[in-house]
């Protein structure tokens, strides 16, 4: 498999077959065919390729985020390959669909590790997915794993690096902003029943109470619950002025609809959801998003020339795509993951062994990433990020406040 290049154009027939799988288009790439998706760069390269594995949700409830991750990674890798690869070695991409289903994912990830023998895996979006696939990747697969999504923290597994925001990074700016600038005091926490909401809520609660506020109720619902009238009624009757929402799809859509229809936002209530971004219109109608507060590592409206340029290139590579390059869907984390990996391999001088790359990536900084520079905090497996508090206004996000190089405060 070393330097074989399949013919260009073979991908068109396969692409046209993928009506159901959404935008797996890859302009400028060449498609291979055994097992998942393999993209090999065109052109001649001197050295053996680096095999980059992607395990993300192309289908299922989390598909909107998964597809944007996949496309963004393609952009990042193409730019690297166009510039000559990493130390002259091109990157080959291998995709396996984790299908928003941890049980299925475990088997598919096995293919990446055992059959394709990739050198690194980026992927997983929900924490449930990360929990399921980290074992096959890190322990059984003995492979480096980069997890790109905002999450609940406390992931201190060796050789697992998180490139998305942590609770500290998301809440340290957002909560005080809501409480001090907008006077919100009575919080409700409707949550999906799994670890991320539980730990995030714990962190947020401490901050809320420290700033003199109150958590009126904190409730957990099964992921597929679609009935929230009792919750919304409680929000109104208890005089909640800020809803700190951690419900995820498929229940999310039902909740935001029922919250919106109750007139909560019209009456001045604040709705905040820390994973909402420009991609959220793929999940939830725009009118229900209007006015929502969020805090992420990047928005299209951030004054950031690198980000703006990348958006342009992304739009050229995937014209008309509905999967946007945003932060809440882990796409920025995914982009960062590729750049961190590139920086680490440059540092090891081409040594792809896990020990070497892991040691290198542990203490490395990157530029040329959306939202501003980032650097890994050594010994923690997490990175410092610029964080922006923003509010949804007519389909885009208005930046209200920001902070640079916010520390992740994990595993230290």
């Amino acid at each position, binding site marked *: 498999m070393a330097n074989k290049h399949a013919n260009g154009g073979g991908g068109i027939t396969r692409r046209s077959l993928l009506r159901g799988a959404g935008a797996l288009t890859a302009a400028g790439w060449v498609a291979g065919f055994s*097992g998942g998706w393999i993209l090999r760069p065109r052109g001649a390269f001197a050295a053996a390729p680096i095999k980059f594995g992607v395990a993300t949700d192309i289908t299922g409830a989390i598909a909107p985020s998964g597809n944007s991750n996949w496309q963004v990674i393609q952009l990042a890798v193409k730019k690297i390959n166009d510039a000559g690869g990493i130390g002259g070695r091109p990157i080959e991409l291998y995709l396996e669909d984790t299908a928003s289903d941890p*049980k299925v994912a*475990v088997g598919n990830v096995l293919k990446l590790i*055992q059959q394709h023998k990739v050198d690194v895996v980026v992927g997983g979006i929900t*924490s*449930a997915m990360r929990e*399921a696939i*980290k074992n096959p990747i890190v322990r*059984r697969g003995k492979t480096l794993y980069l997890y790109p999504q905002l999450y609940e923290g406390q992931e201190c597994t060796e050789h697992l690096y998180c490139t998305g925001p942590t609770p500290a990074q998301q809440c340290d700016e957002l909560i005080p902003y809501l409480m001090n600038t907008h006077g919100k005091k009575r919080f409700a926490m409707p949550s999906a029943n799994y670890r991320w909401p539980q730990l995030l809520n714990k962190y947020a609660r401490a901050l809320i109470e420290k700033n003199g506020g109150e958590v009126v109720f904190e409730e957990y619902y099964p992921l597929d619950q679609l009935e929230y009238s009792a919750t919304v009624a409680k929000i109104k009757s208890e005089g909640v002025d800020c809803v700190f929402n951690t419900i995820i799809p498929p229940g999310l859509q039902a909740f935001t609809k029922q919250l919106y229809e109750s007139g909560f936002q019209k009456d001045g209530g604040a709705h905040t959801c820390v994973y909402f971004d420009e991609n959220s219109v793929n999940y939830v109608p725009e009118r229900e998003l209007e006015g929502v507060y969020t805090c992420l590592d990047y928005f299209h409206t951030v004054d950031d020339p690198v980000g703006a340029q990348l958006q342009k290139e992304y739009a050229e590579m995937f014209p008309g795509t509905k999967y946007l390059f945003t932060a809440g869907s882990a796409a920025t984390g995914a982009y960062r993951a590729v750049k961190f990996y590139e920086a680490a391999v440059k540092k090891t001088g081409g040594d792809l062994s896990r020990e070497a790359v892991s040691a290198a990536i542990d203490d490395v900084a990157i530029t040329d990433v959306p939202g501003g520079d980032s650097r890994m905090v050594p010994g923690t497996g997490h990175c410092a990020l610029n964080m922006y508090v923003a509010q949804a206004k007519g389909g885009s996000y208005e930046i209200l406040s920001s902070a640079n190089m916010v520390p992740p405060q994990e595993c230290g």
Partner: protein
Amino acid sequence: MTETTANLADDKADGKQRPRLPLSVLPIIEIAMLALLMLYPIFITYLTAEGEALDFNNYFVVRVTSIILLAMLAVSFDLCWGYSGIMSFGQALFFGIGGYFVAKLSEETGMTSMLIIIPAGMLVGLISALLVGWFLLISKRTPTIIFVALGSLTASFAAERLVAGWQWVGAGNGMSIWDFPTLFGTDLEPGIGFYYLAVACLLIAYLASRYLVRSQFGLALAGIRQNEDRLAFLGYRLQAFKLIVFSFAGLIAGWGGAIYAFHEGFVGPATVGVTTSTYAVLYGLFGGVGTLIGPVIGAGVIEGLTVILSDNETLKAYWPIALGAVMLVVVAYQPTGLVGLLVTQRERFGSFGIRKGKKSSGTDDAGKADGHD
């Protein structure tokens, strides 16, 4: 479940005389499957080597190991439905409980030895089946098949919801089993060693089940299958028989589930749930219930095709529909499953005395009394 005598006319074209096919096809199929399982890793490693060094711990070996463990679940289903008239739509409950139990045990005590995992899985499978079986199968009037089917389905469903909401066992995330299981001190990673361990477990469970269904106890089961009431009048305690088989089936399911959890490194609500339970039924019906080897073949074919087809983007989307269609066809037109194409009804029911027929039964495994393997 009463078999009609209509099939007999088909099987024996010329009445009571020598049938055209040798009667004992089942042992041939069983031996063929065993040979296939034993040789597969070697065969597949050579096939996929592609000029590089031989790696016996490759992807194809690991993938099939999972299927072998699922085949234990299939066998446990067959014991219930194929032999005892118990339509268990919740076998995954015991499979998954085995997995959860050893996952939690490992998390709390750090134990990873296979010598504990296997008995623990068996024990928790046995006990939970005993409890569920007591509730479903024991009552003054014999419970109907529908009642047992719905009851077991409900149990599996309820278990899935329960663990999905219970943080102590990982709730919706399920539980990741970080450590590899150990055997006599050394780590047993997924690969060829694990593969042969799985084959050994399946083989032992299979042989034990085979012994059971060919013993005099098995004769009673054959009678229960055909006409329960008749056996009650003969003095058989029907419910005791059913509970014993159900508990034994639970033991096998728990055993398989415990090893499966350690092989996959993960156990989640789906493992105890309705989807997995339904797959157990599919393996059985597709392969052919009442034969023990049928469900093993069924599991192999269905899971194998799922893996192969998942590589092909177009087919992957349509595979579940295709699977459903195939199931409908099998249930409507070939209720005895794949194995039923080769094995006569008579052989499925078997023979239980110490003497086998000479002229009227055709050729035979000469000299081998039933029940001793």
